[in-house]
């Protein structure tokens, strides 16, 4: 759909990012409602190479940062501050797999009401049990057991994260299957519980 492709407001070249035109080096008056993929100029998809993301972020930072607009008119200075702030948030969100999954889910679940608190079966009871076990370990200060627990939780968290990509791919293939997005929501919720638990375990020296 060619008309969807945003164009530069001065030279009309096709824009990579909604924030800046690399053809004529102009800051763009971007719309307030714009997704983070548009900000960084990537297709809306979970698949994203971290090196590509890093490179694009650096390219854009080197153009947008307020440090380069010290002598510019006030309006342009302000635009660069806001654009840099949005760029930083977009980059931070898309870089972390869990944040990216959660953000993408939020973008794609517009037509469908998700149960936002869903958890895998038996998960909550298990978490209560683990929290108690952790309390005891913290009380006794058993470093070996704590370290084992940390490793265990980290592995479970990694397993969950590994599910994001195939689930989003499945959703792309079967967009009408509403169960897939709900499944993602459930995984994300579980990840959050594990993350909180991990935050309570003091890091190893």
């Amino acid at each position: 759909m060619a008309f969807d492709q945003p164009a530069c407001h001065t030279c009309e070249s096709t824009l990579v990012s909604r924030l800046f035109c690399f053809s004529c080096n102009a800051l763009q008056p971007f719309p307030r409602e714009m997704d983070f993929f548009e900000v960084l100029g990537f297709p809306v998809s979970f698949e994203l190479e971290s090196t590509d993301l890093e490179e694009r972020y650096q390219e854009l930072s080197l153009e947008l940062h307020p440090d380069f607009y010290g002598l510019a008119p006030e309006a342009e200075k302000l635009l660069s501050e806001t654009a840099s702030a949005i760029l930083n948030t977009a980059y931070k969100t898309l870089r972390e797999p869990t944040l990216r999954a959660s953000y993408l889910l939020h973008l794609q679940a517009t037509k469908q009401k998700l149960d936002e608190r869903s958890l895998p079966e038996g998960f909550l009871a298990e978490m209560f049990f683990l929290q108690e076990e952790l309390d005891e370990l913290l009380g006794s200060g058993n470093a070996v057991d704590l370290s084992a627990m940390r490793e265990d939780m980290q592995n479970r968290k990694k397993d969950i994260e590994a599910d994001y990509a195939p689930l989003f791919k499945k959703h792309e293939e079967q967009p009408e299957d509403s169960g897939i997005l709900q499944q993602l929501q459930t995984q994300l919720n579980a990840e959050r519980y594990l993350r909180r638990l991990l935050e309570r375990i003091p890091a190893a020296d």
Partner: protein
Amino acid sequence: MERIIGIDLGTTNSLCATVFDEGPEVIGEGDNSVTPSVLSRIDSGWLVGQEAQQRRISNPENTVFSIKRLMGRDLEELGELVNELPYQIVEAERKLLKVRIGESEPYLDFTPQELSAEILKKVKQRAEAALGEAVEKAVITVPAYFDDSQRQATRAAATIAGLEVARIINEPTAAAIAYGLDEKQDLQKDGHVAVYDLGGGTFDISILKLSGKIFKVVATHGNTQLGGDDFDQSLVEILKKRILQEYTQAQFDDPESKQILRKTAESIKIGLSLSPENEYTLDFPKQDISFTDNFKVEDFESLIFPLVEQTLESCKHVLQQAKLSLDQIDEVVLVGGSTVVPGVRREIETFFGRSPHVAIDPYKVVAIGAGIQGHLLAGGRRDFLLLDVIPLALGIETLGGTFSKIITGNTTVPVEESETFTTNVDDQTSIDVNIYQGERELIKDCRALGKFKLHGIPPMKGGFPLVEVMFRVDANGILTVSASEKRSGKKAEIEVIPFHGLTQFEIERIMEDSFEHAIDDFNERQLIEFRLTAERVFQGIEQNWNVAESALSGTERDEIRRQMEVVRESMKKQDSQALKAQLDVLGELTRPLADTAMGRSILTELQADGETS
């Protein structure tokens, strides 16, 4: 091109730098490039820098130092420090600290912002004299771990001093720029750099990732109340104990004794960096005490070990935050005067398992980095970019005294995040929100930055209005807040009341006051400054007279003696410019002494005086 200088506003010393045709360098030469961050009150105003430093012992109640440790803080947070400092500190409205001058009413009270402004004014004047042009804009450095109040206080100080702040940058980041852009340094241009910055009053550890043109801060940690001053203070405690063993009646609580102890501690510390033992003598003439002893470097090192250990704890912490292991750190850079202490340097080397970079003077490196950043902001170059972070999370108080983070710590700035608020009762038209900064779960463990009131919410049913509050942290790491009501589209009015800072109105009032007094004060201040300079020059000449004996002819020596008498006469009169002119003549006469290394310090002194007028 307009010039934006870089200023390192330090706890003990302040200095500035800029990019010259030959490259970045500090402004001024030798001792003349450094302004001690000390000020001393005289009838008509402040003496700042070297002149004030001389009065630390003779006039302790009126001589203020380590002012950076008071910036943006309150009495409770200062703790013991209040008793250790020889000058008086009081708390005014909104927990604002003030330094009190005078033994009885009417007192003169000054905020740390005003006092720092005096130091900045002096740095500005000296830069203008050395560069021969007006200086209006500056990049000012702060410890990376400075929170919003401390940054705001620094910016207010600059405004009061008549400087436009082009950017506030973090000290370790400035140092990284200085190293990273210096072709002479064999620093890896792609990799992780740890910057360990231990100054007079603050400690920071920052991890940066260098890739291509970008210097990105990954994580930062620190302690804004830990530095070389604490080494001195630990030494002071030992000195007291030693004296008490011999003189059981000794008293140390008066400002003069405090200063004598502190100065001695400082010189022992410096002496021990050069030799393994330092002999010292403490004279308290009023108590008829003269105490001589010596200090061994082992004793000093075991004394400061707990403090160094604290900094290494921060290093461990920052590595965790950066999700890096020790072997992923490619380079270590040392910054700040306290990293000159051999014991400190050894501990760092052991911790990181590699020898740190020290080639750029640790006293100058921060100012140089700030000068380079100023050059970039002025449009002089665009071959690098600094991406810095806010050190601590920003958020608000929510139910039950919990701290709800809106922007997390170590987030790259600038950044903006919004949060939606609503009313509790029908027709409520204002909401109060308390803002905090910190990394803990409960607001009682975080710093209260201030509160804001949202006014002008259209009357609606309770819980119905949607007030979107936008929290923005700019590239200086400073927070601004704006708000609008979503349903009506009305911009809500917002009033921010800082807890430790000055309001815009207060800053303007201070500026007006200082402008009114500036003209009357000028002659008198100069007079006192020139008199003190003259005394110092005399001292220098006397100390180096043996050099003059061999380097100068009899006639030349007579001329110097005669001119010294003329200067002495001029010192008794009230005309500052006449005194200055006679000092200049003395300067000319002693110029040949500069050819010998021994004489250099006298000449620097005389030229310093020539440049500041």
